Every structure is written in structure tokens, then in C-alpha cells.
């Protein structure tokens, strides 16, 4: 390769060496200047498309990763994360599609109480975080997803969540009616 743009080389090198995804601002701080970085990221993403390594943006932060279609060559089964329970998967989906949500709202949607462990597992995985409190009676805690959630599931942003636009259009992501459920959930047993 002849004469390559020094900025492209520099952004490439920094992202490659970094142990975690980087915002353009973090890259700029490292290179001592922000000029042209956004453009360089776009150029690099385009250059790497189709290679074995691709440059992706997740929640405003960029990193290199292996191409998804090569998963069969790389998949590591031996140290797969603790398999998430059905309750865990549903709870994660409900938080991601409705965030921020309270625990009562999650329970209203699932029609059953969630065990303390379910949210703990999601928070321990780094996918869910407490996100303040709702200003309503009791000031219940709110939950939302994290940047690590976007990273892990390969989402550029929450707008990338599969089918989120259709679900919203169908009214299925409207505010949850918790009142109707009170009686049902009250005495419900544990779920996972």
C-alpha cells in the first residue's frame, strides 16, 4: 500500500490497541486533535466492510470486531456465559424495549412476580442498570440498559432493537397498565 492518510493510520492504530470501545472524543484526546476524526471513522468503516474484521459503532463508541458471519470459526462454547433463564431473557427484552421501567411494570407485562435474582443476574452481566426513580407515589426505582448491552448484542443504538418500530406502531410499547394487574400479581409465586 502506498502513502496512506496519516490520520486514518492513527485512528486505526488507536482503535486497534484500545481495550474498550472509544468515542470520537476519546480518540481525539489521544491524538491531540479532533479534526477529521468523524470522517476517518466513516472511511475506515467502509474500508473494512467485507473483511474478516469490521469497524462498528455501538452507542456512539467505536471498536473493531470479527465479522458476524465468521462466528462458526470462532465461537467459543467452552466458556459461554451462564445461560440466561427464560425469566431473565424476557425481563431483559422488556427493559430494553420499554426503558426506563419499574419492576412493577415488568411484572405487569409478564403477569408474574420476578425474583430478586433475575434483575441481579442482568445487572451483574452489566446489561442493566438502575436509572433513577420515577416521580410517582413510592418513587419506584427505574431500570434501563447499558452501553455494554448495546456492545454485547451488536446494536448501534436502541433504535436498532429488532422490530421496535413495528411494536411501537402496534401500540405494544405504550405505557404499561399496572393497575389492572394488582390483584393477580399480589400473591403470585416465584418464577425462576
Amino acid at each position: 500500500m502506498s502513502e496512506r492518510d496519516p490520520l486514518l493510520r492513527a485512528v486505526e492504530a488507536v482503535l486497534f490497541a484500545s481495550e474498550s470501545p472509544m468515542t470520537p472524543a476519546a480518540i481525539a484526546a489521544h491524538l491531540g486533535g479532533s479534526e477529521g476524526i468523524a470522517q476517518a471513522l466513516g472511511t475506515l468503516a467502509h474500508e473494512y466492510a467485507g473483511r474478516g474484521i469490521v469497524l462498528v459503532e455501538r452507542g456512539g463508541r467505536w471498536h473493531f470486531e470479527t465479522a458476524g458471519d465468521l462466528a462458526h470459526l470462532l465461537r467459543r462454547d467452552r466458556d459461554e456465559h451462564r445461560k440466561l433463564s427464560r425469566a431473565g431473557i424476557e425481563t431483559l427484552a422488556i427493559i430494553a424495549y420499554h426503558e426506563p421501567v419499574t419492576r412493577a411494570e415488568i411484572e405487569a407485562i409478564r403477569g408474574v412476580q420476578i425474583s430478586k435474582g433475575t434483575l441481579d443476574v442482568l445487572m451483574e452481566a452489566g446489561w442493566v442498570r438502575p436509572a433513577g426513580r420515577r416521580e410517582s407515589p413510592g418513587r419506584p426505582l427505574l431500570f434501563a440498559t447499558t452501553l455494554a448491552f448495546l456492545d454485547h448484542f451488536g446494536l448501534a443504538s436502541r433504535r436498532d432493537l429488532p422490530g421496535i418500530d413495528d411494536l411501537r406502531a402496534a401500540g405494544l410499547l405504550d405505557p404499561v397498565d399496572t393497575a389492572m394487574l394488582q390483584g393477580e400479581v399480589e400473591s403470585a409465586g416465584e418464577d425462576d
Partner: protein
Amino acid sequence: MLTLAIDGWEGPLDLLLALARTQKVDLRAISILELVDQYLAFIEGARALRLEVAADHLVMASWLAYLKSALLLPRDPGETPNPEELALRLTLRLERLAAMREAGARLMARDRLGRDVFARGAPEGLRTIRHLRPEADLFDLIAAYGRVSARTRPALHVVARRPVMTLDTALARLAAMLGGEVAWTRIEAFLPEGDAPWRRSALASSFVAALELARQRRIELDQEHAFAPLMLRGARA
């Protein structure tokens, strides 16, 4: 009839959704009346087999029985919420649960970082090296030295000079001034002009001088009571 154990369901909504699926895939097209019957029959079946039926399933059963009767009986037009609306809300809840269940499955099936796609195995890592650049100027430096010196050098105590009238001076003054004086006069009248510390010293010295002169019988002292003015006059020859 489904033959799964009642405790295999994650709550009544989960069971209802499974029953609805046996009717139709499109949840909006299911028959609520039929669903109610399916649910009630399932619960009855479980009780007939003497299985433990969780309380929330029973609560749901009674709510569904109420809904069914409301849907079938002639309606009171003023009743709110009307049974059709309740049925619609139930359908929406089933739809939402189904949607979230499917969304969860789609999330889990994505190419996941650390399972399907991988970040660089051995990144060099980026390091930020901080250099401390302390700030201080020459004044800070010499002021600091002054402070240290002031704190630790042996202190040199100098007693300030104060204006004092010695006893000798007071004796000489008082003896000269009272030489021919025969009227009683307050001691203050014999003090020199000057500022307050000087006059205070002169008063003290003159008082002692007056006591000495009285002892020598050269003057007489008189005071009517404690703290009354001290009166002086020359001794009668």
C-alpha cells in the same frame, strides 16, 4: 387438552398465552369466550388431579369467570369499564407478552460479542501518563522559608519600653509642689500632662511617694472613705 403440569407455567398470563396459541397464531383473532372456557377447564382438570393450583391462577380464574358472565349477560349501558374493553385489554396484554418473548429470542440469537463476534484478543492497551507539574513562584518559596523560620527559630523576647515615672522623680516632684501648699488638694492635681499610660504611671508613683512623704511627716493624707478622692496637703510646721 394440554397435559402439562400446572407448575410448569410462569404465571396465569403465560398459561393463557399458551392456550390462546392453540386457537390461533394471530392473538387479535382469538375468541375470548373460548379462551375463558379453556382456562377454566384447565384449572378444573388440575384440581381433579389434586394438583396444587397456585393462588394467582385461581384469582385469574375468578376474574375470567366474571368477564365471561359480563360478556354474556344483558349489559347495563352505564357500566364501566365495559366487558368488551376488558376483553380487548386482556388481548393486548397477551400480545405484548408474546412480543416481548419473541424480542427476547431475537436478541439472544444475534451475533453476540464474546460468543459469536470477538474484540481483539490481545490489545496493546492505551495508556495515559500523567505528569505532575507543580506550580509555585519565588514569593511562595521565600514566604514558606519565612514561615518555617518563624515557627522553629528560638523566640527572642523584647519587652517594649513603656513610659514610666520613677519613684525618685515622683518624690522630688511632690515634695517641691507641696512645699508651701496648705489647702487640701486631690492627688490628681499634681500629675503631669501627658497620655493615659504616662499619667497612670505617674499616679502610681506619686501615690507611693505620697505615702513615703507622709511617713516622713512632711505631708498629710486624707480620704473620707474607700475609693473617695485622695487629698494631700503640706504638713503643718
